[in-house]
C-alpha cells in the first residue's frame, strides 16, 4: 500500500508541475513581459512587440533544458525525461541493444531460475499454516531426527515455554482402491497435530487426543482436500466410511482445509493417520513407539512472550534430565540423544542438514551463474563505452555549458537501467522455460516411490529478485562507461575532430574487460570439460554386470502384511509365472539390485577371529538374491557354485563373497577358490539391537563361491550375496531380461503380478533408466557447467567481436594511411588479428592460472579425472582461441576493405 500511495503523490506532483520548472517558467515570462513593455515604449504595436521579444529571447526550450541540466530538476520529472531519452537511444541502436539485452538476459535468467529452485526447496513457507509462529526442532547439525516418541512426550509435557508440540513421520502406504491400487504419501502424526499447526477441517473433524493413545486402537484417517477431490470426487458422504491403506480399513473422520498438503515438502502428502497406527503404516520396520532412539520429526510453536533462546535452553535442560533418567548406551545411534537441540523456522521435511547441502550446491551454481552474468555485463559495458565515444561531443558540450556531471551520469545510468530491465524481462521468460524443464525431472530422492512434486513458481519474490539483479547489473556495467564519458576533459573533446584521444584512452578499459571475459569463460569451459569427461567416465564405468536390455521391477510385500512363509511362497510363484511370460528370457530377484539406494553395510566376522580388520569393525555390503541371479545379471562366478533350490531356510546357511572381500580377508591364499568352506558370521550384537538383518544372522555361514564384484558409485566394496530364501526381505526388486523390445512386455508382466495379488503396487522401469538414476547427478552437473560455459563462450565471442569492430572503426584513418603507404590487405589483416589475439592470449594466460587453482579446490567433484587433465587444459584453450580468431577475423577482413582515399577524406 505504501508504494501505491507514493506513486499517487508523485503523479500528483507531476501534474502540478515541478517547482523548479515552474520558477523557470515564471522567470522567463517576467522577462518577456518586461521586454514587450520596453518594445511598446519604443513605439511598436503590442503584437509586434511581443513577437520581437520572443524572437530575441531565442529557443525557450533549449534554455530550460540547460537550466534543468544545471539545477538538477525534480527527481521524478527528470527520471521520466531520462527514460524517454534512453528509450529513444536504445531504439536508435537496435542491433547493439538486442545484443546487450541477450547478453544480460542469459545471466539474469540463470540466476532467477536458481532463485526459484532455492525458493522451492529452501525458503518457501509451508502452505496453509501460520509460518511465523511455527518452528522445527533440530538435533545437532540437523542430519538426524530430533526425537524419539517417548522423548517427544517428555518435551511436550515438561516444557513451560511451548504453546504446543507435535511429532510426525512421513510414510508411504499402499492405497487400495480396487483396480487403481497405488502408493500414496502420508504422515503419521500425533493427536494434537492439526491443533498445533492451526489447520482447520473443511469436512468432519480432526483427531481426538484419545485416538492417539493406544497402539493400533483407532484406525482413523484425515484426507487432504486434493486427495478427497481427486480420488472421491469431493463426496460429502465420505466421512464415516472406510478406505483401505496397507490392506487395513481406516475410517475417514475428516478432510483438511484446502491448501494444506502436510509438512513433508517436496513430497505431496495425501492423508494423516495417528502415530499409534505405526505398526500398520510401517510393517517392515520394527516398532519404535517405545524406543528412545531418535526417529521422529517435531514441529511446534512458542508461548506468547517466550524467546527462541529461552525455549532452546529449556528444551536442552529437559534433554539433560532425560539423559540422566535414561542413560544412553555406548552405541552410535544412542549417542545422538546427547547432541544439543535447537529451533529452526518451520520448513518442509528435508533434514535441516540436507537442506544446508542443497544450499551449498545452489550457491555453487549461483557463483557460476554470476560468472556468466559478469561476462554479459562486460559486453554491455563495452557496447556502452563504444556508444559513449560517439556521444562524447554531445556530452562534452553539455558539460561545457555547466550541466552537472552527476546529472549526466544519472541520465546515462537510467539508460543502462532501461537496458537491464529489458534484460530482466527476457531473463524471466528464460526462467519460465527452465522451470518447466526442471519440473518435468524427477528428483532422485532416496526411496522415492512417490513422484515428488516440486512447484517452481514465478512469483512476486522472483520478480523482485530479477528487478534487484537488473538494478545491480546496470550499476556494474553502466557506472564505468558513464564515468568515463563524463570526464570533464571538455576542451580536448570539443577540439578533437574524431574523439580519437578519448577513444584511445578507454581502449585500455575495453581491453581489460575483454581479457577478463576470456579468462572467465576459459575457467567455465575448463570446468565444463572436466565434468563432461568425468560424466563419460561414470557412464562408461564397468559396473560389473551386463547393462544391456532389461526391466527392473520394484515390489513391496511388507505393506500388504505378508509373513515370511507367504512371502517366500509368493517369490516362487512370482518367478515361475513371470519366467513363462512370452518375451521373457530370464528373471531373477534380489532384495535390492546394484545402484539402488537400498544398499548397506553389515558387520561381519570370520570364524575364530576377532571382528576387526585394520583396527576397524569388519564389514561388507550384503545383497539377498534369488535363483539364477549371477546368470541373469551377467556376473561371472569365479569359483564354487551358485545357490540352488536346495538352499532353503532350513538347510545350511551359505554365502557367496566377491573377489575384493576374498583377497582382503584371506590374503595368504594362493587361489581365491581356497576360501570356499570357510565360515563367517554376518551381523553383530549392535545390529541385533538395532533390528538390522534377520534373527538367523548370528549363525555361522559357509562360503560356497566367489564372484566378480559389482561397483557402487565407482568403488569396489567388500560384498557378499546370501540366498533370499535364508534371509527373507519383504521388499524386493526383480530383473527381467527380455527377448523382444523390453517395454512391450510390461503390460503382460503387470497382468501376471495382478493375478498373483491385485493389491500389490508395482513400479517397472527399464534397466537403462535404473542405471541412469545413478548418473543423473553427474549429468545435471556436467549439463549445468556445459550450458553455462557455452553461454559464456558465446558472450565472449560477441564481446571480442564488438571490441575488434570498434577498434577497426577507430583505426580506419590509420589503416587508410598505411594502405596508401603501400601496406597490403594481408598486412592489415595480420595487424588487426594480432591485436585481437594479443588480448586473447592475455585472457587465456590469466584464465589458465585461475582454472588450475579453482579446479584443484573442487577436484573431488570429478570422477577419475585429474584436476589438471591435460586433454581438457589443451583442448579448451585451443577451442577458445579458434572462436576468438573467428571473432577477430570478421572485423579484420572489413579493415582490409578500407578505401584509402575515402578513409583519409573521412571527417
Amino acid at each position, binding site marked *: 500500500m505504501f508504494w501505491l500511495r507514493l506513486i499517487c503523490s508523485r503523479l500528483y506532483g507531476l501534474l502540478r508541475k515541478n517547482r523548479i520548472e515552474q*520558477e523557470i517558467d*515564471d*522567470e*522567463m515570462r*517576467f*522577462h518577456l*513581459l*518586461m*521586454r514587450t*513593455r520596453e518594445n511598446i515604449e519604443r513605439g511598436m504595436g503590442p503584437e509586434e512587440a511581443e513577437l520581437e521579444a520572443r524572437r*530575441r*529571447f*531565442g*529557443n525557450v526550450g*533549449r*534554455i530550460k533544458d*540547460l*537550466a534543468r541540466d*544545471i*539545477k538538477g530538476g525534480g527527481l521524478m520529472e527528470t527520471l521520466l525525461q531520462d527514460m524517454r531519452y534512453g528509450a529513444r537511444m536504445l531504439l536508435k541502436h537496435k542491433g547493439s541493444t538486442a545484443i546487450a539485452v541477450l547478453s544480460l538476459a542469459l545471466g539474469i535468467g540463470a540466476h532467477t531460475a536458481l532463485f526459484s529452485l532455492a525458493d522451492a526447496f529452501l525458503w518457501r513457507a509451508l502452505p496453509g499454516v501460520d509460518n511465523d509462529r511455527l518452528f522445527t526442532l533440530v538435533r545437532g547439525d540437523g542430519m538426524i531426527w530430533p526425537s524419539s516418541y517417548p522423548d517427544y512426550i517428555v518435551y511436550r509435557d515438561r516444557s513451560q515455554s511451548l504453546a504446543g508440540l507435535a511429532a510426525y513421520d512421513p510414510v508411504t502406504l499402499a492405497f487400495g482402491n480396487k483396480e487403481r491400487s497405488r502408493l500414496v504419501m502420508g504422515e503419521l502424526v500425533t493427536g494434537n497435530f492439526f491443533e498445533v499447526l492451526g489447520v482447520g477441517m473443511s469436512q468432519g473433524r480432526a483427531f481426538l487426543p484419545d485416538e492417539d493413545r493406544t497402539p493400533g486402537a483407532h484406525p482413523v484417517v484425515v484426507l487432504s482436500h486434493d486427495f478427497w477431490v481427486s480420488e472421491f470426487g469431493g463426496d460429502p458422504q465420505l466421512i464415516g466410511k472406510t478406505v483401505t491403506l496397507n490392506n487395513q480399513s481406516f475410517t475417514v473422520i475428516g478432510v483438511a482445509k484446502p491448501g494444506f498438503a502436510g509438512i513433508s515438502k517436496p513430497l505431496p502428502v495425501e492423508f494423516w493417520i495417528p502415530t499409534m497406527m505405526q505398526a500398520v503404516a510401517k510393517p517392515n520396520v520394527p516398532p519404535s513407539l517405545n524406543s528412545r532412539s531418535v526417529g521422529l520429526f517435531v514441529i511446534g510453536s512458542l508461548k506468547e512472550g517466550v524467546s527462541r533462546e529461552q525455549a532452546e535452553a529449556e528444551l536442552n535442560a529437559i534433554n539433560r534430565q532425560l539423559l540422566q533418567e535414561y542413560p544412553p548406551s555406548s552405541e552410535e545411534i544412542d549417542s545422538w540423544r546427547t547432541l544439543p537441540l535447537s529451533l529452526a523456522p518451520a520448513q518442509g521435511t528435508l533434514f535441516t542438514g540436507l537442506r544446508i547441502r542443497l544450499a551449498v550446491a545452489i550457491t555453487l551454481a549461483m557463483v557460476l551463474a554470476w560468472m556468466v552474468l559478469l561476462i554479459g555485463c562486460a559486453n554491455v559495458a563495452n557496447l556502452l563505452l563504444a556508444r559513449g565515444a560517439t556521444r562524447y561531443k554531445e556530452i562534452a558540450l553539455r558539460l561545457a*555549458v*555547466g550541466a*552537472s556531471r552527476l546529472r549526466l551520469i544519472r541520465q546515462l545510468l537510467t539508460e543502462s537501467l532501461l537496458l537491464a530491465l529489458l534484460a530482466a524481462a527476457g531473463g524471466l521468460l528464460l526462467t519460465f522455460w527452465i522451470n518447466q524443464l526442471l519440473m518435468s525431472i524427477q528428483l532422485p530422492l532416496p526411496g522415492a516411490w512417490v513422484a515428488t512434486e516440486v512447484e517452481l513458481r514465478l512469483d512476486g519474490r522472483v520478480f523482485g529478485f530479477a528487478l534487484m539483479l537488473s538494478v545491480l547489473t546496470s550499476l556494474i556495467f553502466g557506472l564505468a562507461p558513464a564515468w568515463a564519458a563524463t570526464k570533464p576533459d571538455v576542451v580536448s573533446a570539443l577540439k578533437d575532430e574524431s574523439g580519437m584521444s578519448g577513444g584511445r584512452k578507454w581502449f585500455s578499459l575495453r581491453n581489460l574487460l575483454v581479457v577478463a571475459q576470456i579468462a572467465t569463460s576459459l575457467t567455465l569451459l575448463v570446468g565444463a570439460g572436466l565434468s563432461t569427461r568425468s560424466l563419460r567416465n561414470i557412464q562408461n564405468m564397468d559396473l560389473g554386470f551386463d547393462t544391456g536390455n532389461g526391466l527392473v521391477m520394484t515390489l513391496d510385500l511388507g505393506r500388504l502384511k505378508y509373513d515370511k512363509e507367504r512371502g517366500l511362497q509368493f517369490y516362487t510363484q512370482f518367478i515361475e509365472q513371470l519366467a513363462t511370460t512370452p518375451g521373457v528370457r530370464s528373471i531373477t530377484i534380489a532384495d535390492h539390485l546394484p545402484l539402488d539406494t537400498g544398499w548397506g553395510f553389515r558387520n561381519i566376522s570370520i570364524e575364530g577371529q576377532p571382528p576387526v580388520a585394520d583396527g576397524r569393525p569388519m564389514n561388507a555390503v550384503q545383497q539377498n538374491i534369488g535363483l539364477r541371479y549371477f546368470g541373469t545379471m551377467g556376473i561371472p562366478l569365479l569359483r564354487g557354485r551358485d545357490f540352488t533350490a536346495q538352499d532353503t531356510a532350513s538347510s545350511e546357511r551359505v554365502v557367496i563373497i566377491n573377489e575384493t572381500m576374498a583377497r582382503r580377508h584371506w590374503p595368504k591364499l594362493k587361489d581365491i577358490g581356497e576360501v570356499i568352506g570357510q565360515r563367517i558370521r554376518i551381523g553383530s550384537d549392535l545390529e541385533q539391537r538395532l533390528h538390522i538383518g534377520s534373527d538367523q544372522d548370528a549363525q555361522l555361514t559357509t562360503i560356497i563361491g566367489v564372484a566378480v564384484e559389482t561397483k557402487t558409485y565407482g568403488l569396489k566394496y567388500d560384498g557378499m550375496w546370501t540366498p533370499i530364501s535364508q534371509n527373507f526381505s519383504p521388499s524386493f526388486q526383480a530383473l527381467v531380461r527380455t527377448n523382444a523390445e523390453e517395454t512391450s512386455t510390461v503390460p503382460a508382466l503387470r497382468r501376471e503380478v495382478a493375478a498373483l495379488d491385485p493389491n500389490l503396487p508395482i513400479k517397472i522401469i527399464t534397466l537403462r533408466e535404473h542405471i541412469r538414476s545413478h548418473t543423473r547427478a553427474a549429468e545435471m552437473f556436467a549439463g549445468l557447467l556445459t550450458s553455462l560455459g557455452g553461454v559464456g563462450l558465446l558472450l565472449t565471442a560477441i564481446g571480442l567481436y564488438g571490441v575488434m569492430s570498434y577498434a577497426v572503426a577507430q583505426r580506419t584513418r590509420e589503416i587508410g594511411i598505411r594502405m596508401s603507404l603501400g601496406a597490403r590487405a594481408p598486412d592489415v589483416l595480420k595487424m588487426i588479428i594480432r591485436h585481437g589475439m594479443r588480448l586473447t592470449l592475455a585472457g587465456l594466460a590469466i584464465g589458465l592460472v585461475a582454472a588450475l587453482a579453482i579446479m584443484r579446490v573442487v577436484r573431488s567433484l570429478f570422477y577419475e579425472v585429474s584436476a589438471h587433465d591435460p586433454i581438457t587444459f589443451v583442448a579448451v584453450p585451443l577451442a577458445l582461441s579458434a572462436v576468438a580468431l573467428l571473432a577477430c577475423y570478421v572485423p579484420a577482413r572489413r579493415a582490409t576493405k578500407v578505401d584509402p582515399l575515402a578513409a583519409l577524406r573521412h571527417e
Partner: protein
Amino acid sequence: MPTPDTKLLQGTLDMLILKALSLGPLHGYGIGQRIMQMSEDALRVEEGSLYPALYRIERQGWITAEWGVSENNLRAKFYKLTRAGRKQLQIEEENWERLAGAVFKVLQTN
C-alpha cells in the same frame, strides 16, 4: 536593434553579471539592462546566455535568488551578490585588469 552584437570572451559574462549585481539586487531582465547601460549600449547580453550563466553562478554560490516584487508590481526573481561573490568579483576584476593592461601594451607597441 542598432547596437552591434559584441561577442564576449568566455568567462567575461560571469564577471559582468557579478559587477552589475555589486550595485544591488536585480532581476534577470534588469541585469541585462544594467550591463547595457554601463557599457553605454556597447554590450548586449543574449537571454540564451544570460539565464544559464545566472543558474551556473548561483550553483557556485556567488549569488542567491529570491522572489520579490518588481518596480512595476510584478512577481520577479531577484539575484543578490553573496560575500563569496563579492570576493570572486574582486579576483576577476584584478585578473581582467592585468590581462587588459597586457593586451593594451601589446597593441601600443609599434
